[in-house]
């Protein structure tokens, strides 16, 4: 009768929770497929293009061909001869960075370019346009015989972990842990309450803390594939490396995941309807999507807001994940972030247990 062995209720609750989650195909999509799609889409959109070439339009005129030839000295310039209307149109759309034209009002028939009046038309607020202006001037002057005064040796290095995709992958992991923690736990609890299953469980000798704790345990088991998937995918497709220790990454992920499970419990502690809980979830999640630096650095927000942003659990988790993955820093150096997460975890779990409604 080994098969019929009666196991610990915490074990049974956790197993039941995991089975319920795995048997929910939609949940698997949102937790596993959606983040991959997001990572791939964002990774491609923001991938570092191999030394983007500057596109420079030259207005059709007698000297256009010569300018084009001179510009071609530089490998990073792609010259193109266009009529005035087309050139302006392309500048407006950002397809070309700069228009070079010859002002014939002063000198209608210049014998050489040196005597011609060149006009550079560009938008000063575009950094590429400013680079295009300098590069064009450099190419034309050098082509016409300018001598460089000093010798420069280019020492090109690539700092690992500094690309956008390196920044993005830990942010997506953080976001994913938040989403699955809060929705996964919060919805399951509210759903069970609306179906009177919580009340039914309260009528058994089940320990109430076991029920809530089972959610935490099941989250800990789920986060392993959740995190591993994004890490492995980032590594295979985009060559995103984990510079710190994998153990540290696991520890940070567990703490982050539990923190959001706690927040999910708190939201679900009293909600009577799925709609009510959804509202609260969005109220908590949306600001963190924007503020916590999943997609772009929160350093861009005004200085006075930064301490508040850093006190948010998702910010702490993202920062900790980036410190471990991108910078290879030890846990000791991110103790502040870990402390922020721990405070949120303890606070939400204790309050949830206190105010939790079983009926």
């Amino acid at each position: 009768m080994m098969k019929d062995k009666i196991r610990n209720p915490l074990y049974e609750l956790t197993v039941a929770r995991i089975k319920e989650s795995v048997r929910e195909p939609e949940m698997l999509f949102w937790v596993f497929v959606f983040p991959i799609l997001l990572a791939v889409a964002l990774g491609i959109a923001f991938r570092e293009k191999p030394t983007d070439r500057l596109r420079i339009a030259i207005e059709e005129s007698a000297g256009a061909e010569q300018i084009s030839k001179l510009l071609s000295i530089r490998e990073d310039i792609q010259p193109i001869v266009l009529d005035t209307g087309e050139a302006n149109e392309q500048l407006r759309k950002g397809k070309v960075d700069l228009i070079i034209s010859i002002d014939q009002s002063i000198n209608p028939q210049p014998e050489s370019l040196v005597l011609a009046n060149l006009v550079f038309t560009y938008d000063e607020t575009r950094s590429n346009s400013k680079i295009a202006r300098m590069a064009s001037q450099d190419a034309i002057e050098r082509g016409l015989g300018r001598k460089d005064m000093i010798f420069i040796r280019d020492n090109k290095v690539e700092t690992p972990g500094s690309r956008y995709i390196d920044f993005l992958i830990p942010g997506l992991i953080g976001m994913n842990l938040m989403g699955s923690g809060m929705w996964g736990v919060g919805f399951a609890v509210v759903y069970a309450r609306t179906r009177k299953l919580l009340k039914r469980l309260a009528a058994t000798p089940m320990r109430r803390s076991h029920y809530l704790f089972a959610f935490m345990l099941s989250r800990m088991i789920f986060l392993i594939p959740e995190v591993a998937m994004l890490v492995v995918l980032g590594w295979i497709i985009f060559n995103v490396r984990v510079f710190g220790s994998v153990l540290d990454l696991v520890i940070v992920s567990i703490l982050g995941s539990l923190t959001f499970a706690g927040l999910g419990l708190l939201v679900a502690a009293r909600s009577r309807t799925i709609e009510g809980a959804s509202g609260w979830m969005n109220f908590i999640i949306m600001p963190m999507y924007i503020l916590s630096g999943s997609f772009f650095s929160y350093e861009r927000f005004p200085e006075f807001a930064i301490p508040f942003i850093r006190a948010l659990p998702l910010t702490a988790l993202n920062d900790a994940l980036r410190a471990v993955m991108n910078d290879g820093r030890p846990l000791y150096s991110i103790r502040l972030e870990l402390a922020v997460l721990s405070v949120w975890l303890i606070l939400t779990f204790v309050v949830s247990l206190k105010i939790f409604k079983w009926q």
Partner: protein
Amino acid sequence: MEISKEEISGRTISLAIPAVRCNGVKKYFQTVHAVDGIDLEVRTGECFGLLGPNGAGKTTLVEVMEGLTRADEGIVEILGYCWGSGDDRAFRDRIAVQLQETQLADKLTVEETLRLFRSFFSRGHTVDEVIRLGELEEKRKERVHKLSGGTKQRLALACALVSNPELLFMDEPTTGLDPQARARVWGVVEEFKLRGGTVMLTTHYMEEAARLCNRVAIMDHGRFLAIGTPAELIASLDGREIIEFRVLGELEQDLLTGLPGVKAVDRKNESYVLKVLSIDVTLPALLNAAERSRARIDHLLTRQATLEDVFMSMTGGRLNDEG
């Protein structure tokens, strides 16, 4: 086998103490007097039914007994235990609860659900045993959301029986089920009774109460209107036999009231219900009277009074809308 020894000794001890004792129990929700002064004693081994329409206060009363709701006033003792006087959680090992309309986890199978519930209790049946008790063998591997209404109710019942409880609370266990599914649920309850279990049941089906319950209480507006065995309650009626019919043409109501043995006349349009002492005496007189008045009688039906008639005579309403 150890479990069953324990269970026998547990039952012999509790024989002397009533399974349920309520004394002056009241529960108000704002201004609604959901339970308004209930006294009740249910003996061990008895099946007691709370009969009443929706909103009568049955569910609130049962939830007070189950320790899910606190009474505002009065004493509630379950198997001699008062809620909140000791270890409530440990006490729950001895009782079982089936709530009205609990929906168990959809994605778990029957067996997984029972295994989960079994793990909460420190004693009880094995999962295999309780699957047999609930007649769920064929559905063992089926997920809950695929089960029919009747099977879901038997699973809910099995979840309650998993601890082999001394006292089983059931709140409208067969509402919305078809007659066949209802009969299977009754079968499970009857087997529990045979094994010596005590049952506290709410229902608005008089047929259910008549079949399962040793005693019933008729409840409305938070109070008991009557309490006794089904036979006692029917016997308390003035007219224990019923004649129902429809009249085509004119038949004076005074004429009907004056017929021999008639205790009460209820009229709804052309339909009449006569409560009589004896059908044998009243029926020929009725037919005679109709012939004299040149009225035609059809849809004639005679029957014994049921709990429903008891309820109607006490409240003027019906037990349930389905009739």
